[in-house]
Structure formats: structure tokens, C-alpha cells
């Protein structure tokens, strides 16, 4: 059963069309991440679902009901904000129970639910504190708790981790994931951090300019991006691209800067056709050392710059007229100006049509 279903949604701010004829179905219990660069309309979409913005056209259904014009609190959603938006003058308990009091839930019931949420989130000892006396992670839990007590079907998160430092972000990410395992609610999660998206999502919707470019599992999005934008957006450091031509006289080849790369092992979506195109290869899919011998294609190059990152090392070099990055093990001892041999497999490539930039 679909938990949230968005039909032909339009949203304009005055003359600016932010969301354009957007359709999205989210099955029950799914963890969907909306990923996109700043200003692409992620928060706007989330606010429409929450009922915090009036849509300009289309419908929103939650749990089978048309809630297009319902008030936020009538939609069965809970929302967690970037700054957490805890009510600073209320204790944690007050924060948790505010929504329930508004809904005129009986006192005993409120106490029960708050206790339950506090237990799930392990914030029992904090109930009497005010938000100012909480750490970032604790605040986030309270913010989630606020949705939890209201016993909603759908959780909406708007970049809940982006204000935190790296360490805490990594920890809380895992906590959110655990919570989803435990609660099994539908969750819609907005972020512009791809690591979050990749690690958390059942499916990721990549947005740009108010449109959804690709909606798929993280694995598919990472390995089979449906167009060049998605390919470039996902992955850090991002994919290396070569402009060239696909030839199909004989075995299919990608020709760029005088090199012909055999691509018969590439999984084409449809039958390969000749024409201009882009070839993309991720830095971590470029192999070096012994593995090169087994690769579909190999060549020699010189290291330009090395960025050691501890667990791995980014190496910059130039091949076929393009400056590329490749990712090596953190223990590898390459130096600037070393000569190395690199290679890659066609199965790991992504090929895109030149004009539409769609995967082929």
C-alpha cells in the first residue's frame, strides 16, 4: 500500500515555479531520501507534504486519503527540522506533549506516550530539562520524539543532521537508521549530503530544479545513474568524464582523444547505437597495480597531485586529455610525479548520450 502519494504537484512562489508536475509514490515503511543541491526544491516538497505550504496544483494523498487541503496536524505526519525547532521555553516533556495537548488527548494517555517515546529514544533522564541544556544529539532525539508521541504514520526530516559536526553526524545517522528498523514508519528525509542519502535510504530521489531526475535504490543510483547530472552529483570525489563517440562498426567502442575503449562488456539499456556521448568512470573504479592486467582497458600516466586522506588516497593525473581523480588505498605510497599504470573495466563505466545526457 502506498503511504504517501503525490500527484501532479505544482508549486509556485508568485511567478517562480518551484515544483513542476511532480509525481511520487512512497510505499508504507519505506525510507525515502530526497537528495539534491541547495535550492532544488527539497524543503519545498517536504513542506507541501506536511501542509505547511499551500499547493498550486495537484493532489497529495497520505494513507489513501486526499489531504491536499488538510491542516498539517490532520495529516498524520510528524516533522523534524534542521534546527530542531524545539520550543525553547518548554521542558523536554513540554515539547513532547505540546502536540498532544493541542489535540486534547487525555492526560493519562499523554503521560503514557511521552514515557514510551522517552524510552525508545533513551531520553528519560532529560525530561525535565530545557532544550538549551541539551547537546546536539539529545536535541535531535527530542525532535524525533515530538513526532513519535503523536503516533504518526509518516516522519518527515528536513536536513536534521546538517548543523552538527562530522563525528556526531555519523553517530546520529546510524541512530536514525536503527530507529527506522525499529519503528518501520514511512520516512521522508531531505538532505544534500550524499553520504547520508546513500547510507540511510531504501530509495533516493535525486532532485534538480523542482524535478525528480532519478528515483531508485542507492545501489542503482550509484552504479547506474540514469543521467549525467545524477552521475556527477553522486560520489565524492565525483565521477570522471570523457567526451567522445560510440562506434558500433564491429565490437562497440568508445573513442576519445585517439583512444578506443572496448565497451562490449558494458550493460547497455537498449541496443548500442553509434553517436556522440559521454563516458564516466568513478575514481574508485579505476584500478592500479596488478589489477590493471585484468582490466578491459589500461594506459600509463603520471601522478600530478596526491591527496592522502588516511583511509584512502586521492590521486590526480591526466589521461586522454582529461584531468581525472582516482582513489587508492590509504596505504599506497604514490608520490607526486610518479609514473603509474591504470585501468578500468567496461562493466564499471557509465555511458551517456551527448545531447540528452541520458544513460545509454
Amino acid at each position: 500500500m502506498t503511504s504517501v502519494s503525490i500527484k501532479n504537484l505544482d508549486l509556485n512562489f508568485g511567478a517562480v515555479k518551484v515544483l513542476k508536475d511532480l509525481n511520487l509514490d512512497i510505499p508504507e515503511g519505506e525510507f525515502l531520501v530526497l537528495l539534491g543541491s541547495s535550492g532544488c526544491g527539497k524543503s519545498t516538497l517536504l513542506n507541501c507534504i506536511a501542509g505547511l505550504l499551500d499547493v498550486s496544483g495537484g493532489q497529495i494523498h497520505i494513507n489513501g486519503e486526499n489531504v491536499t487541503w488538510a491542516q498539517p496536524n490532520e495529516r498524520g505526519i510528524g516533522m523534524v527540522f534542521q534546527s530542531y525547532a524545539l520550543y525553547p521555553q518548554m521542558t523536554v516533556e513540554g515539547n513532547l506533549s505540546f502536540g498532544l495537548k493541542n489535540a486534547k488527548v487525555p492526560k493519562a494517555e499523554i503521560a503514557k506516550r511521552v514515557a514510551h517515546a522517552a524510552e525508545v529514544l533513551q531520553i528519560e533522564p532529560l525530561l525535565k530539562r530545557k532544550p538549551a541544556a541539551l547537546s546536539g544529539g539529545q536535541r535531535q532525539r527530542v525532535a524525533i520524539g515530538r513526532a513519535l508521541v503523536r503516533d504518526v504514520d509518516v516522519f518527515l526530516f528536513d536536513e536534521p543532521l546538517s548543523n552538527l559536526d562530522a563525528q556526531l553526524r555519523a553517530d546520529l545517522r546510524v541512530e536514525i537508521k536503527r530507529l527506522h528498523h525499529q519503528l518501520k514508519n514511512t520516512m521522508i528525509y531531505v538532505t544534500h549530503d550524499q553520504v547520508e542519502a546513500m547510507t540511510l535510504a531504501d530509495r533516493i530521489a535525486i532532485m534538480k530544479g523542482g524535478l525528480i531526475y532519478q528515483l531508485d535504490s542507492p545501489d542503482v543510483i550509484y552504479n547506474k545513474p540514469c543521467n549525467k547530472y545524477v552521475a556527477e552529483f553522486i560520489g565524492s570525489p565525483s565521477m570522471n568524464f570523457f567526451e567522445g563517440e560510440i562506434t558500433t562498426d564491429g565490437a562497440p567502442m568508445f573513442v576519445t582523444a585517439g583512444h578506443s575503449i572496448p565497451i562490449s562488456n558494458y550493460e547497455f539499456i537498449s541496443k548500442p547505437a553509434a553517436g556522440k556521448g559521454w563516458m564516466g568512470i568513478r575514481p574508485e573504479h579505476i584500478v592500479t597495480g596488478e589489477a590493471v592486467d585484468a582490466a578491459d582497458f589500461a594506459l600509463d600516466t603520471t601522478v600530478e597531485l596526491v591527496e592522502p586522506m588516511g583511509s584512502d588516497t586521492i590521486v590526480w593525473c591526466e589521461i586522454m586529455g582529461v584531468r581525472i581523480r582516482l582513489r587508492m588505498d590509504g596505504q599506497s605510497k604514490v608520490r607526486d610525479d610518479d609514473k603509474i599504470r591504470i585501468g578500468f573495466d567496461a562493466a564499471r563505466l557509465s555511458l551517456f548520450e551527448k545531447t540528452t545526457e541520458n544513460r545509454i
Partner: protein
Amino acid sequence: MKNNLTGPQGPKPKKRMSPNNIMLYGTLLLVTMYYLLPLYVMVTTSLKGMPEIRLGNIFDLPVEVTFEPWVKAWSTACTGLNCDGLSRGFMNSVRILIPSAILSILIASVNGYALANWKFKGSEVFFTILIFGAFIPYQVMLYPIVLILKNLGLMGSLWGLVLVHTIFGMPILTLLFRNYFTSLPDELFKAARVDGAGFWGIYFRVMLPMSLPIFVVAMIIQVTGIWNDFLFGVIYTKPAIYPMTVQLNNIVNSVQGVKEYNVNMAATLLTGLVPLILYFASGKLFVRGIAAGAVKG
């Protein structure tokens, strides 16, 4: 280790009496003197007897301190047949001040909140008109308001004056509150809506508790404005509820033989006492509130 350091080390020695500092504190001294001078003159004069005033100079300290003028200003100075000084006006001022300040601040804060968080078609237009209103000289509206009050049957009553204060306080206060509420995080408002709080619920339970600084500013502005008002007080009310400023005007302008400067000064100080105390007591909050509400936007 520490011993083998040579040359400059540690904090740079600072001269206490550097020319810069002398200039700075000298200027500040002059400035404070300029600002304190009138208060000083008013206080000393109000403590002198009339002969001393006539003979001496206004900057001298009183030779013989007398509280007579204060007593007279407060309770016996005459206007026409009424010889009860400012005391009657004081209670009137309080009776005018409390409802006017509360009502105008409440209304303006709700307006500001609606304008910041619940924009509707045309709200900006009304707001713009309101701001333009802040600039319209009172004189333009003095007369028509007499007619409006007449039609409302409020002319000469306390509530008429309260209404007038509410109206004229509205533009600046609304601006203040709007700016402040706009500067509060939008997410808080959204969170409250998701929690099912309505217009009033959010206002009272979420916004109000966070607005202390701006309420302080609004209160100070309104209390001073209302307390110090003379024009509206004299035109829209009647003797029974004349505020203290009208009484002050009466005392100062009812010259009986000689001008009793000491009584006038005492009366002036007495009239200014309420806002002055407020300022001295809440200066810091005021500055903080100004920074929160007025500088932005």
C-alpha cells in the same frame, strides 16, 4: 626555558595615559556633562528656595536644601481653583497608561505576528499604509478623530484616549514586532503547526514566551510615549481624567506673581520620574531589544 627569551615578550605594555585614552575619556566626560547638565540643573533648582534662585546661579549646589518645592508641586500647586498639584494627575496618568500600554502592545504584537507568520493577500499593503501612517503629522488627524470619537461615543472618556494611544502607537510597534517575529526561526512556527497549534495557540504558547526583549522595548517606548503625551491628553479627555502632563502644563503656565522655578522643576522631575525610573532600571534590556528588533529589516 623561559629564561632564555630575549627581546619583547609577553603582553605589550600599555600606557594608561596615552594621548588616545586622554582624548577618548576627555570627550566622554564632556559628552556626559552635556547630557547630565539639564538633569543637574533641574534637581538642584528644585531643591532651592526662591530667594536663593533669584540671587545665585543655576549651577550652584543648593546652600539650603528644601523639599518644599517638591511638596508643593506634588500636592498644593494651584491651577485655577484646584490646588492639589500633580497628585491627581498622577493617578489619572496611571489609569490611562496601564490600559493604553497593555492594549496597544497586545494589539501590535498580534498584528506583527500575523504579518510575520500568517501573511495573507493584501497584508503587506495594509502594513505599508500603516508605516506611512507613522509619518503623518498628528495635526492632520486631530480633527477627524474628534468626529470619529464622537460617533463612537468615546469622546472625553478614558477609553477614547486609550483608543487614540493604541492607534498612534500601532505603526511603530507593529513594525517592531513584525521584524522581531520575522527574525525568529521559521521552523519553530512550522513545528508548532505540525503539532496542531492554531493561530492563538502558537502566539501564546510558542511566540510570546520567546519575545521578552521586544516586549521590553515596546513597553518602554509606549510607557514613555503615553506618559509624556500632552496633546491627546488635553484634547480627547476632560479635567476629571487629565493626565499628569496636563497638570504639569497647568502648573508651569499658571504664573502667580512670580515664576516659581523650583516648583516648576520639581513638577517637571516628578512628571518624568516614571519613565526615568523605567529607563534606569531596564536600559540593558532596552538596548538588547533594540538590537533584536529594530536593526534588522
